């Protein structure tokens, strides 16, 4: 909260009018939409495959607790996921879709760096690169647990 000096409100704010900014907005929007559409397709397809492979899931109430209670079995390492995907297991396809969703914001930050390089904006290239580093660091820290 610096200064008691008041600037008259008539002054027009300094705003970006670069057409390249609009291009970047559209690229980011398409990336986010693409990641989301791909993940939703995988998740829906995986769910349908799951029910097709396990007819008892449609009729047996007793099956539910085994699927949603603590200790439920599902692929949660990359190696498990890869082997389950080879067998076309429904849960593995769903999990792949969930991972695509998790990767989408990370890709968005990566594409933003390219966009700022393209715009010749060094300061924002640096800022966005630091964000990506922090993000990768947090992924690394998560793995370390």
């Amino acid at each position, binding site marked *: *909260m*610096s*200064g008691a*000096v008041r*600037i008259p409100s008539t002054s027009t*704010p*300094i*705003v*970006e009018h670069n057409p390249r*900014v609009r291009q970047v*907005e*559209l690229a*980011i*929007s*398409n990336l*986010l*939409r693409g*990641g*989301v559409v791909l*993940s*939703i397709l995988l*998740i*829906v397809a*995986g769910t349908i495959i*799951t*029910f097709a492979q396990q007819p008892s*899931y*449609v009729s047996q109430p007793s*099956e*539910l607790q085994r*699927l*949603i209670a*603590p200790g*439920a079995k*599902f692929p*949660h*390492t990359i190696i498990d996921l890869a082997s389950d995907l080879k067998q076309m297991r429904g*849960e593995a396809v*769903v*999990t792949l*879709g*969930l991972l695509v*969703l*998790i990767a*989408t*914001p*990370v890709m*968005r930050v990566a594409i*933003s760096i390219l966009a700022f390089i393209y715009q010749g904006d060094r*300061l924002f290239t640096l*800022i*966005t690169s*630091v*964000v990506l580093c*922090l993000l990768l*660091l*947090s*992924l690394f*820290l998560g*793995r370390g647990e």
Partner: protein
Amino acid sequence: MTPLEFVLYVLLISVAAGVLGSLLGLGGGVIVIPVLTLLFGIDIRYAIGASIVSVIATSSGAAAAYVRDGLTNLRVAMVLELATTSGALTGAYLAGLLSGRWLFIIFGVVLAYSSLMMIRKLKQSEFQQSTKPAPWADYLRLHGSYFDKRTGRETYYRVTSTRIGLAMMYVAGAISGLLGIGSGSLKVPAMDLAMHMPIKVSTATSNFMIGVTAAASASVYYMRGEIDPFIAAPVAVGVLLGALGGSYLLPKLRSSTIRLVFVVVLLWISGQMLWQGIRG
């Protein structure tokens, strides 16, 4: 309840949570977690795992539409993400030191404070241009404009108090890392109240930043085996569809309407959080 019925019920409730979360910039997670645990009796860890994925879905799904509509301030988002991501790292570290009860109580207090600030602002029904000097925002060229569908005009705004905004975003990121939520309820007031950005721009920009923070937490939950595909699938798809619907409604709504809904939801959630902390 058969597994099929379970998936369909969770899907329907998640659609509703997605619409609400998108309109409020909340990310849907704070609505989904109580529903999954209280209504369906799901283990809190699995509820959080499903919620964090849905938070990414909300953020990315709605953000795609907001960015195309030019509501999101990308430059503000990039700068503030410095604070939210470093905050998330701190929060993830602190999570191992503080007890859960204290986290709920702290969060309840913070949310109640935010909503009371919102009520105070309701009296000034529409957005007012700030005239405060803003050397940081000038240097980083953060000021912007958006097309207001209601008035049919391009509306310019000045961004102020960048450093206060950064500090608040650091806290928001830390809370997100601690509790595994998007914490849009802290990000929106930081931009709306502290940085003097219009509520629609604040909501759109908050949505945009939430995905990055949630992606970091989600990978940790995945590695711990807390993202159950059977729960996460209907939650993610439902919240996603709801969020897309909400993002079409947002530009057409009056700012004060959004704010009023926001206040009510914030107060309700803060009560839930406090009760959870006191009860233990």
